[in-house]
């Protein structure tokens, strides 16, 4: 069975600074996807970034980037130039690949990020 672990329940960062959120996972699968989702107080889960396991290059989306270490089963999220609007819960999630239309995400417990002015 797959598991996702986020070891930082809460983090804070000053506006304009950089912060890194940690995520580790356990799986015997070779083909899978990893995601970071953001959940602000509005409750909607918003996709931040996606990484395919078969891609060695780390994914980036504007101020958001990941450090994907497949052998170590580590998938951290770096937020550069933090903004007040980045304040939210951040969830790391895992999905098996090549399983038809598999849409089952396995989630970590989340990290609450506060960006301070």
């Amino acid at each position, binding site marked *: 069975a797959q598991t996702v672990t986020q070891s930082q329940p809460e983090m804070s960062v000053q506006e304009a600074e950089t912060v890194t959120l940690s995520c580790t996972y356990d799986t015997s699968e070779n083909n899978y996807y990893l995601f970071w989702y953001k959940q602000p107080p509005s*409750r*909607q889960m918003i996709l931040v970034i996606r990484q395919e396991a078969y891609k060695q290059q780390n994914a980036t989306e504007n101020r958001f980037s990941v450090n994907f270490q497949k052998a170590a089963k580590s998938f951290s999220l770096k937020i550069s130039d933090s903004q007040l609007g980045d304040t939210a819960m951040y969830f790391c*999630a895992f999905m098996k690949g090549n399983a038809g*239309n*598999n*849409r*089952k*995400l396995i*989630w970590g*417990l989340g990290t609450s990020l506060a960006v301070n002015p």
Partner: protein
Amino acid sequence: DAGVTQSPTHLIKTRGQQVTLRCSPKSGHDTVSWYQQALGQGPQFIFQYYEEEERQRGNFPDRFSGHQFPNYSSELNVNALLLGDSALYLCASSLMNSPLHFGNGTRLTVT
């Protein structure tokens, strides 16, 4: 382009009652998944519907059932409600191999 819409936003029920939650997927999406998110927890996968059939199911009892309609919208039904069913219920839609798009959820409180 409307995203995923869920109704109602909030709901209060009594133990033993039944509840139906509704979800309209993002335009063009054909797959709907449901997740339960207890307070302070990550979401837990309930089930997934595609072509009007349940395709995958998480570790939830048979009290949780669902349906997908020809227009791809979906319902989640929970029978014999327990206090522990109190949670945020999230609906997500997608196409095959595309990222999931989530709605704002339905907050269910069981008293």
